[in-house]
Structure formats: C-alpha cells, structure tokens
C-alpha cells in the first residue's frame, strides 16, 4: 500500500492541472444543473457530456502515466508491483472522479433540504453504476492503449462498431426491445457485465500484461453489451420483479373476462404495427373488475395463443404492443390509455400474424391470453405554479415549470428513483405523459437525480403533477374457448 500511495502521489503531482480543470468543470456543471430552471435547449445534456469527457480525460491520463502496452517504459524494470500500480490507479479514480461526484450528490441533497443519509443506498448504487458503466470500462480501454491518440482512435473504432451493430435493430428496438418499467433489470445485467469485463481486463493487463487477451475480452464484452439490447428474457425480468413485490394480490383483484355482448367493431383509437411486419390489429371487448379504489392497472405485456379446431396454432410471445386499453380520445397518449383506473369495459388489443389470420378467419378458434400486469397506487396530485422556482413534489422530488414565448417547459427530478408513473396534467382532460417510467428499486443511470423534461406549445392555464407507485406485479389469464366471428373483428 505504501508503494501504491507513492505512485498515487506522483500522479497527483503530475496531473494536478488536469485534476483542477476537471474539478472546475464539475463545479460549474453542477452549479448550472442545480440552478437551471428548465432545460429547453438541452444545455444540461451538453454540459453532462462535457463533464463525462472531462472525467474520461482524467482517467485516461492517470492510466497512461504508466502505459501498460509497450516495452520501453522505465517502470517495467523497476520494483513497482503491478498490484500496487493498479491500486494506485483505482485510488486515483475513486478520489478524483468518484469522490467529487459523491460530494456533489450529497451537496445537491443538502441544498434541497433532504437528508443524504436517507438516500445513502441510492448514492452508493449510482456510484456503483457510474463505476461499472462509465469509469472502469474507460480505464480498461486506456489500459490496452499506449497513449491518448491511440485511445481516441480505439474509442472511435469501438463507437462506430457499436453503432453498426445497433443500427440494423434500431427500428425494432423502439417497440420490441424496450422494457418499460423493467429496463433497470437489463441495465443491472449490462452493468454487471461491463464491471466484470473491465475488472478482468484491468487484472489481465496489470498483473499479466496479456494485451491481446485483454483486448479480446474488452471486444467481447462490448459486443455482448451491445447485443444485450436485443436479448430475450423480458418475462424472466418480469418474474423477478414479481418476486420483489412485497404485496400479495388476491385472485379477486383484476379479473379479466371476455365481453362478447359489446359491438365487436368499435373503432380502435390507434393501431401500432411493427415496421416491416404484416400484422392484423384486432381488439376484443373485455371487462375488468376488482381494481381497488383509486388504484390503476397496467398491462406490461401480453402473450396470445390462438388455436383452431383443425389444430393450427399461432402464438404471439410476450408482445409489448398487445395491451389492455381504454378509449380516451385523440389527445390522450398511448401510455395514458393503457392505465386502467377502475372497473369497467376495456379492450384487449393484439397483433395477429396476417397470414395465420387469413387462413383461419372463417373457423371458430380457441384464444388464450396471458397478461403481465402491474397494479399502481392511488394517484397523488401536486398542483404546480408557473415561474415559481423549484416546487417540492413527493417523494423528495421537485419540479420547475416555466414558459417562454408560446412554449411551456416542465422539469421534474427525484433523488434515487422516480415514481413508477408521473404525468403532467396541463388542463381539464389533458395530460402529458412523462418519459420517466420505472419499477427499478435503485438508480441505474449512474446519476442520483432522475429527471424528466416536457414541453408543450400554448402555456396551460393550470399545471399539476400526478404520480403513482407500482405496488404489485402479477399475471392473469383470459381464456375464450370458442371465439366466433373471428373474421369480423
């Protein structure tokens, strides 16, 4: 440890101007982010990028003080234990990257009048994700390069490679591979993978100097984390989420029954078709009962299986576009239409493979749907005033609302985690769905404050924030053994 500290002190002695610069950037960015009432032009996002680049620059500089690849470095033949060298670099990252972030997070809580102790687990989780996703992978990449130019070149190659892998799936990713609510599970898996890979690379490089193996591990981890975006396993994640639910849901809650008496040709307010896929959109009338007072029900995903009497069978798998919904009118958002706020008549929307539909539309069929559902707490509404600065919203969050010219802006932020659903109510019967939507028990973005920005033209007469928490996750079945008029729907 004595040697590790000697190396650390030496790095500080050499890199202090860069350390000072990065700390100054962080201070400025932190102050602007804290005091910025809203972020209509994406200033905070741009500053965040600058801050990230500054951290990376500092991390790469520290690693390259003793570049690992190469055969001319003076330290290779000095009694510097590799583990001391690695320890010195980790201490540097912890002291000059993680610690300032930690102090910034604590300060932001204190300035908002929130006890940092209450949010210590969230702070530590955000630090862990920051290390796993943003700091250590960069340190690992720096450890397989000999200088800044080589690092930047390699980084760009990796970036382009990542983009090339992602591009073919980008259109599908919007619907099939986005896990609303459960994204935290995939983020955790990705972070665990990058943390393991970065640790492996750092150990291989510093303790063994196995350059090509390290590069291979890094490339494989990047490829895997890119492909994880399209990994199956949504239902496994939902099962995990169900296990984490502490509240037991009795069978009487959220019963779903086919409602054949209603007009089967009721127009469907929206139709969500996958790009490049020939589906037949179809809605079945259903009745949902047993939603507790004030609570709301949301269908995360539905899997539909259809079997004809001749034995032909088709299954949708867990489809994010299949859903329980209600018809609210043209100005409602899709998310809002999926949130069922009491017992009543609803629709089960599903996409059926068109060729299967055309082959079997004249036959009576057996339809079975399994629905993955989330029960939300009663809605909590906080009225917000325009141009009043930060206004507290539960729990421990704040919102800033302002209007400029004819555009209305709103920014809300919560420490640690957001409410599962948050919506801005901007007038009678009119809401803007916030992009924030998570069941995650901890922050996975590497940041403590989870924010959402919204804007809309025409400043509204009144604004309020409506939030709900997820209280339970469970599954229900809907069985229709003899579905007739299949062709008319």
């Amino acid at each position: 440890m004595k040697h590790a500290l000697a190396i650390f002190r030496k790095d500080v002695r050499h890199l202090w101007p860069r350390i000072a610069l990065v700390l100054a950037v962080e201070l400025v960015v932190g102050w602007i982010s804290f005091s910025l009432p809203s972020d209509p032009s994406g200033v905070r996002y741009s500053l965040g990028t600058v801050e990230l680049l500054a951290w990376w620059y500092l991390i790469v500089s520290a690693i390259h003080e003793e570049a690992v690849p190469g055969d001319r470095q003076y330290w290779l033949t000095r009694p510097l234990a590799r583990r001391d060298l690695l320890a010195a670099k980790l201490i540097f990252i912890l002291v000059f990257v993680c610690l300032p972030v930690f102090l910034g997070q604590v300060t932001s809580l204190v300035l908002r009048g929130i006890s940092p102790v209450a949010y210590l687990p969230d702070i530590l989780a955000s630090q862990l994700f920051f290390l796993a996703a943003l700091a250590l992978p960069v340190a690992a990449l720096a450890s397989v390069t000999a200088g800044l130019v080589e690092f930047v070149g390699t980084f760009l190659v990796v970036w382009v490679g990542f983009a090339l892998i992602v591009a073919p799936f980008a259109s599908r990713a919007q619907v099939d591979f986005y896990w609303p609510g459960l994204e935290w599970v995939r983020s955790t898996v990705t972070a665990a993978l990058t943390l393991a890979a970065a640790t492996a690379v750092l150990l291989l490089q510093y303790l063994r100097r196995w350059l090509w193996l390290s590069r291979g591990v890094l490339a494989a981890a990047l490829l895997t984390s890119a492909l994880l975006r399209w990994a199956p396993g949504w239902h496994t994640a939902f099962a995990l989420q169900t296990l984490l639910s502490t509240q037991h849901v009795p069978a009487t809650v959220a019963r779903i029954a086919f409602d054949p008496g209603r007009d089967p040709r009721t127009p469907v307010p929206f139709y969500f078709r996958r790009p490049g896929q020939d589906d037949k959109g179809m809605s079945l009338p259903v009745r949902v009962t047993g939603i507790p007072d004030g609570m709301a029900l949301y269908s995360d995903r539905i899997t539909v299986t259809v079997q004809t009497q001749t034995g032909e069978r088709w299954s949708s798998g867990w489809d994010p576009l299949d859903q329980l919904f209600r018809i609210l009118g043209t100005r409602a958002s899709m998310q809002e239409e999926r949130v069922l706020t009491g017992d009543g008549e609803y629709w089960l929307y599903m996409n059926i493979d068109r060729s299967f539909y055309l082959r079997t539309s004249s036959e009576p069929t057996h339809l079975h749907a399994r629905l993955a559902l989330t029960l939300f707490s009663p809605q909590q509404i906080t009225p917000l005033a325009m141009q009043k600065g930060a206004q507290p919203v539960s729990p421990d969050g704040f919102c800033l609302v302002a209007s400029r010219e004819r555009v209305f802006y709103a920014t809300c932020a919560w420490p640690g985690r957001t409410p599962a659903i948050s919506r801005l109510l901007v007038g009678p019967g009119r809401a803007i769905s916030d992009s924030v939507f998570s069941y995650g028990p901890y922050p996975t973005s590497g940041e403590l404050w989870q924010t959402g920005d919204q804007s809309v033209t025409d400043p509204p007469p009144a604004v309020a924030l409506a939030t709900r928490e997820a209280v339970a996750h469970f599954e229900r079945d809907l069985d229709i053994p003899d579905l007739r008029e299949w062709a008319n729907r």
Partner: protein
Amino acid sequence: MTGIISSQSLSKRFRRTVVLDGLDLEVPAGSIYGLVGPNGVGKTTTIKVLMNIFPPSGGSSEVLGTDSRRLGPRQFEQIGYVSENQELPEWMTVGYFLEYLSTFYPTWDRALAADLVRQFQLPADRKLRHLSRGMKMKAALASSLAYSPKLIVLDEPFTGLDALVRDELVESLLARSEGATIFISSHDLAEIESFASHIGYLDGHKLQFSEELDALRARFREVVLTFETAPALPAQWPASWLQPEAIGPVVRFVESRFDAERTPAEVRRVFPACRDIQAEGMPLRSIFVTLARASRRATS
C-alpha cells in the same frame, strides 16, 4: 543453471520473424559481460526477454536464480537497467525522479545518490525532458546505481554519446559497481574491449561464442606466412584458419584456435616450404570483422 544470468535454448519470435534462435548463455557472477554483434541480431530482444519485458517463445532463462518470466519487484530491487531507448518520465526533475524511485528500493542509499548526482554534475531541479542525451543517460545510470544492485544491465548505453561522456560513464560505472555483475550490450566493440571481462558474440540470431575476453584474444592471431615463391594453395584449408588469402609469396589468414606449439606445426604440415611464420595479436574489432565475414560466407 548457474551464474547470474543463464539461458537454455532461448528463442523469441515476433509472429513469423525469428529474432532469437536457441540462445545458450552463461554470465558468471562478478563478470563484466559484453554481448556484442551487428545491429539487428537480437541483442536488445535478448535483454528484454531476460528482463521479463518480452515473454520468450521457447527455451528458458534465469536471472538472479529466478525464471525470467517470474521476475518481479523482489528481483528488480537488485537489478539496475539502463537502455538507450528507455522512456523516462520526462516531466520529472532529476531530483524528484531519484526521490520517487527511492521509495521502491529498500537498499537505496541517499548519500550515494547525492554523490552520483554531484559526480555526474546533474542539475537536480531540471526536468528530464530538458536534459541532453548524455545527461539523461547519466540520470538513468545514477538512478540505477544508487541502490547498489547485484546486476547491472545496460542496453547500448553509449549510443550517440561523445567519447568524453562515454568515458565518464564507464569510469563511474566501474567505480560504483564493485562486486556487481555487469551485462552490457553494444555494437561498438571498442567501448566494450576496454573493460569487459567476458564476451558473447551474437550473429544470425544465435550466440556464436561466449568466453573470457583474454582467452578470446589469446586464441585469435593474424598469421602471415612468407615463402620463396608463390606456394601451391591447399584445396581444403584447416577449419580454424579464417579468411585465407595469398598474394605472391605471402599467405595470410586468421587463426581462430592459436596455440604456440600446435599452430606452427599445422602450418608446416600444410606448407612444408614455408620460410617464415609471424603471428600477431588482433584487436577485438578485427576479430569480430573476421568472424562476421566468415559467418556471412558460411551462410551464403
């Protein structure tokens, strides 16, 4: 294996390029061993494999009794390594460079370090990047002598230095390394000849020979034979006679296994009409030029 440095069948390839091929080396303790040979034959690679900078492709080697692949801090505490192409932390001042390194050596002698700085006239407060090449080498050498290492490894340390600085470095090196083994690589034979006790000649990616310098000098002689008339030359020359040439009544060759009794007898056997035999000692440079030419001829 015995000796401070030893290797058996050591080889190193970079992809398909063979740089070392079956190197068997033995550096006795306390010796000043010069590894010489033309540029590009693998002297630096040999040292880098021995110092665990490169892993060997085959064979094995030991340094200070440790497998060179396992050389670590404990061994490097006893090794001083200076190389002409070593990258030093150029942002450091000479004083801080020595102070920083002192942390890692249990045997670091501050008084000795200060003495070396004085002797080399190193400006303690000047950054390494602002030093001349010669001064940088002095700083590197000072940082490698201040802990009295058991083994000093020098890779082409005098390349590009003027004669004055070179002599100064050699003088200090010899004065400050009492009891240590010095392993030095160079393509400049003159600088090695003045102080090496053992010599190894690397050519064609192999060690052609390795022996004490005095023994080497003793067995090489430039032999001049004088005849009454131009003699008839043998179809097959003795293997130890290198670079034979005949100009009229004079025949010259280099005897690589000279013996005061055996060599004249061999001459009389090959040339019974020889009138006069003169055998002169050779400078190291001439010996290596002869060996290099003989090696190239054998290869071609």
